[in-house]
C-alpha cells in the first residue's frame, strides 16, 4: 500500500515536470534536446575512435557497442531521475529550504531527491534504447525475454547504486557547508561506466576494489543481457559494494538530518 502511494507520488511529480517541458515553445524544446544529445554523440564518437584502436579482452566489437548504448540509457536515466533533486538538495541544505521539505508527511528522501526530470533526458535515454535494439538486430545477438527482464532490473539496481553513492556525498553538506560538486560525485566517474569491469581482473586488488564497482554498473547488466559468463570476483565486488554503499549512505543521510539546523548547517 505504501509502495503504491510512493509510486503514485513519483508518477505525479515526473508527469507534471514532463508536461511543463512539453508546453514550452518548440524552439526551446529543440534547443534543450540539442544540449542533451550533444553529449550522446560525444560518447559515440570518442567510443568509436577507441574501439577502432583498442580491443577489450572477452568483449567483441558488437558487445562493446551494446555496452555503450546501455551506458547512454543508464546515464540519461540517472540525469532524468536524480539530477534536479541532487542539485536542489545541495542548495536547500545550505539555504534552509530543506525545512519546508522534510516536515511533509512523506518519506523525506523521496520528496527531497525525486523532483522530476527534463524531457530532453528522457528522449536521449529513449534514443539510446533505439540504438541498442538496432545494434542487437544488426549483429543478431541472442537475447531472451528473461535476459531482457534481468537486464532491466540490474540496470535499476545500478541506478540505485549511483543514487546511494551521491546521497553519501551530499550528506557531507550537513557538516562541511556548501559543497556544490557533491551533487555530481558519481557522474564525475561516468567514464568508468562504459567499459567492461573484467578488463581489470589482472589489476592490483586495491585498484580492483576501487574501479570494479563503477565499471560493473553497466557491464554487469549487459553481461546478463548477452548471456556472457559472469566473473565471480566481479559479481562479489558488485554486490558487496551495493550493500555497503546503501547502508553507509542511509546512515550518513540520517546522521546529517540530525545535524541539520536549518540555514546554519
Amino acid at each position, binding site marked *: 500500500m505504501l509502495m503504491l502511494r510512493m509510486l503514485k507520488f513519483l508518477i505525479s511529480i515526473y508527469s507534471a515536470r514532463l508536461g511543463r517541458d512539453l508546453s514550452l515553445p518548440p524552439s526551446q524544446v529543440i534547443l534543450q534536446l540539442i544540449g542533451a544529445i550533444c553529449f550522446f554523440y560525444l560518447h559515440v564518437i*570518442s567510443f568509436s575512435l577507441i574501439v577502432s584502436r583498442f580491443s*577489450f579482452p572477452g568483449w567483441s566489437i558488437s558487445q562493446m557497442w551494446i555496452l555503450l548504448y546501455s551506458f547512454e540509457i543508464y546515464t540519461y536515466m540517472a540525469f532524468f531521475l536524480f539530477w534536479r533533486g541532487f542539485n536542489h538538495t545541495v542548495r536547500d541544505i545550505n539555504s534552509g529550504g530543506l525545512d519546508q521539505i522534510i516536515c511533509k508527511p512523506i518519506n523525506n528522501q523521496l520528496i527531497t531527491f525525486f523532483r522530476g526530470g527534463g524531457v530532453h533526458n528522457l528522449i536521449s535515454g529513449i534514443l539510446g534504447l533505439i540504438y541498442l535494439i538496432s545494434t542487437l538486430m544488426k549483429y543478431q545477438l541472442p537475447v531472451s525475454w528473461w535476459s531482457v527482464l534481468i537486464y532491466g532490473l540490474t540496470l535499476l539496481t545500478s541506478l540505485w547504486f549511483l543514487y546511494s553513492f551521491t546521497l553519501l556525498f551530499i550528506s557531507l553538506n550537513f557538516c562541511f557547508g556548501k559543497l556544490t*560538486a557533491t551533487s555530481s560525485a558519481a557522474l564525475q566517474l561516468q567514464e568508468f561506466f562504459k567499459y567492461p569491469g573484467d*578488463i581489470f581482473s589482472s589489476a592490483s586488488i586495491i585498484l580492483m576494489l576501487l574501479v570494479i564497482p563503477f565499471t560493473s554498473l553497466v557491464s554487469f547488466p549487459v553481461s546478463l543481457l548477452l548471456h556472457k559468463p559472469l566473473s565471480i570476483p566481479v559479481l562479489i565486488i558488485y554486490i558487496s559494494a551495493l550493500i555497503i554503499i546503501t547502508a553507509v549512505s542511509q546512515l550518513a543521510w540520517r546522521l546529517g538530518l540530525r545535524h541539520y539546523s536549518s540555514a546554519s548547517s
Partner: protein
Amino acid sequence: MKKYRLIFLLTLSQFTTYRLQVFAQFLNSSLPLAITWVVLSFAASASISSAPLISYYILVSLTAPLSFSAVDEELEEITFTGQVNNFLLQPLSLFRWLLAKSLSEKIISLLFLFPLILLAIWSLGVLPGRIFFAFLSLFISFLLSFSLSFLVGLGCFWIDEFWAVRNVKYVVTQLLGGLVLPYAFFPSTALKIIHFTPFPYLIGWAGRILNSGYLLSEFIIASFWLIIIVSLTRLLLRQAINKYSFTGG
C-alpha cells in the same frame, strides 16, 4: 587599470581562503582524462603503444585546468540574477572585471599545480627547450579560452535555455581540443582541418607542447584567432548590454 588590479587582488584572497574549490576544479577537469588513461592502460592495442599515452594524459591533465575557462557559466548566472546591473551603473568593464577574476583564479591554480608540473617535466624527461614555449602557449591558451567562453556566454542575453548552448560548446571544445582523446586517435584529414581552427589551442596545447614539441605556425594561428575572437566579443558585448537594458533582463 587600478580598479581591475584591486579586483584581481580581492579575488586572489578569496581563492586562497577557499582552497578546496581550487582542488575541486582541478579534479573536475582532470578526472575524465585520468579515467580514460586507466582504462586504456588495461586495454590491448596493436597500433598505439601505451607509453606516449601516459605522458600525454599526465601533462595535459596537469596543464588543462590552467587554461580552461567556464566564464560563460558565470556570465549566465550574473545575467539571470540581475547582477549585471552593476556594470550599467558602475565605471567597470564586464569583460575586464571577469578577466581579472579569472586570471587570479588561474594564478592560484598555477601555484597549486606548479610543483606537480615540475615533477612531471623532470620524471618524463621533457626537453628544456619546450618549457618556455609551453608556458607562453599556456598564457595564450588562457586568453583564447576565456575570450571564446565569454563570446559564447554572451548568448545568454538572447537565449533562455542557455545551458544547452554551453553544453554544445563544452562538447565541441573537449572533443576537438584533444581532451577526450589525444590527436593520435583522429584521422589525418580531420587533423589537418582542426589545426587551422582555434580548438587545439584552447585547453590541451601546453601539455601537447611539453609532450611532443611545437610549431611556429601554431602560435601564429592561435594569435590570429585571439584577435578575431576579442574583436567579436567587443562588438557583441555592446549589443548584448543594449538588449539587456531594453528587456530589463
